[in-house]
């Protein structure tokens, strides 16, 4: 689905592709820094201690979430500057791409990158021989990973819109809500392999974020109905 989003909405406009790749880049850098921190922490600690390692991992995840949001903010700043530049340069005084579109594209960029990083090794291994969950782990490993990744990609997209909107209108509570949601989703993934604990809340949160972002982007129930009725 994320690829579908990409092809239908982004691939047309070169500017959007650049913003997408830059978004992916920012996410990557945030991941890099957070893994650097984790790595240092691990090296500095005792590699034998299971509990400690797991605790460190959790700490790493939380830190990474915070870093991701920080980088989203930085990216927002960069895009603001870029938009000012584009407006100044365009002929009729309005920029070729609005801040909301940028928010959407940035969100997709973050999401795609995070999804890719989460899934791609899994997919590569899935091509090879083997049985899922042979050592007593859950047999639904691949399936749940796929769903979780998808929900994360969508969430990133929505968070992008919400976040930028919050920054635009200086509503700090919106930004805080995004951060808290992200932390919650990541935190819920700690319940794995108790999949009920992680997937269900994530999907609920995604639905909430989706409606919120839709409303923010100017949609309404009426628009939705008109859209659906027109089509069929």
């Amino acid at each position, binding site marked *: 689905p994320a690829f579908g989003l990409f092809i239908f909405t982004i691939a047309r406009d070169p500017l959007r592709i*650049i913003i997408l*790749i830059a978004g992916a880049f920012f996410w990557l850098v945030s991941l890099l820094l957070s893994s650097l921190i984790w790595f240092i922490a691990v090296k500095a600690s005792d590699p034998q201690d299971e509990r400690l390692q797991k605790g460190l991992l*959790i700490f790493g995840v939380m830190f990474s979430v915070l870093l991701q949001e920080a980088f989203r903010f930085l990216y927002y700043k960069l895009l603001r500057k870029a938009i000012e530049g584009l407006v100044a*340069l*365009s002929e*009729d005084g309005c920029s070729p791409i609005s801040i909301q579109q940028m928010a959407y594209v940035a969100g997709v960029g973050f999401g795609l990158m995070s999804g890719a990083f989460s899934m*791609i*090794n899994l997919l590569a291994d899935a091509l090879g021989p083997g049985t899922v969950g042979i050592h007593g782990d859950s047999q639904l490993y691949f399936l749940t990973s796929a769903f979780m990744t998808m929900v994360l990609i969508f969430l990133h997209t929505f968070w992008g819109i919400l976040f930028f909107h919050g920054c635009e209108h200086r509503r700090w509570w919106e930004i805080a809500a995004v951060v808290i949601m992200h932390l919650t989703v990541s935190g819920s*993934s700690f319940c794995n392999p108790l999949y009920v604990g992680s997937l269900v809340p994530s999907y609920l949160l995604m639905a909430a974020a989706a409606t919120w972002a839709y409303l923010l982007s100017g949609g309404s129930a009426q628009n939705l109905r008109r859209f659906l009725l027109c089509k069929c």
Partner: protein
Amino acid sequence: MTELSAHLPQFQHGQLTENFPDTHLSNTNDNSERRRHDNSERRRNDNAESETNGQPQNNIQRVVEQDEEEDEELTLKYGAKHVIMLFVPVTLCMVVVVATIKSVSFYTRKDGQLIYTPFTEETETVGQRALNSILNAAIMISVIIVMTILLVVLYKYRCYKVIHGWLIISSLLLLFFFSFIYLGEVFKTYNVAMDYITVALMIWNFGVVGMICIHWKGPLRLQQAYLIMISALMALVFIKYLPEWTAWLILAVISVYDLVAVLCPKGPLRMLVETAQERNETLFPALIYSSTMIWLVNMAEEDPEAQRKSKNSAYNKQAPASQTQNEDAEADDGGFSQEWQQQRDNRIGPIESTPESRAAVQALPSNSQTSEDPEERGVKLGLGDFIFYSVLVGKASATASGDWNTTLACFVAILIGLCLTLLLLAIFKKALPALPISITFGLVFYFATDNLVQPFMDQLAFHQFYI
């Protein structure tokens, strides 16, 4: 009006030259009508036309200023489009290389090394290995430097025939021999039975069409496809025959060299570019990947009619491409294909050509551009850049423990580097080396991802945590 089109080529190609406005004055008026297809162009033209409909002399001043602003706008606006036009081939090349590396094991087997890298890396101690790889890299780089200087000297003294022959031999080698090996290995991997006659026929067709396309004329897309294919082949050869540490060292040193050679006033590449400009010739039509059609050489005065017709015929670049390439063919007998071939030859001197091509990165051919519309003037990227980007990504996918994560990270890093380079090009408007920024990003991300991110992601995936 006249200044408009004259300025455009310069800005678009990042090469500020002073001699063109004069030669192009006669044609630009014709050209202005043709810019209908681009909206921004249209608006711009209306502005310009409304200005110059009055008294040209009085308005020239204002037109010039407005031209400069509009040129900047256009440059940046086109910037996005051009960046994408370069993203696509670079991505394609990298995809081909990575796909081949992943599937065909031939390219990851160690079957020996090139004569350019005589020191082996299978040594007992780390120190010895480091020393060997440094020596290897040094030898390789000096070979490149020598070849580059040789090329520049040949070019300066107009020994076009020599360069021409050299390039033809190297492209022959590349198109026939290497693709034969490649095809053979692919067949082996997929266990496809094939007889020699069919293979001979295929390779012959492939090679001959390639030679014609690249050196002479052919559809733009086909030429681009061939250039991508030969860059991929070359990159695969490098990945196979360069040992580990040597390869990384060479990448690093080459980007430094590229920086030096293009930007220093006495750098060979810069001299090459400037000489080509003085002589008003297109730089390396075959050594460079051009995102749009091939540039005409000195065609402006001779054939405005033909060009106008070709322009009007289609918005699609293909139609003009074939016509302009006709003219290009005759003019191109000079030395340019040589550089290009140099580029591709492995045995005789592969890498030296690449610096040339890289030098030509975004330079140029301002000469005949006048008759071409700005949006049809693309950005040019040297084939050497393609090759080294692909080498980086290919090596990342071949040898990284992080596998796809590392490959993806390097890919994004290179693309962002390319973006930044193009941005700098739009700002500085002169020939820039395309390698340093991208390769630096790529290397940083490769080592960082491989060593830092990989363990992290592994642990996360193991516990199925999500960040």
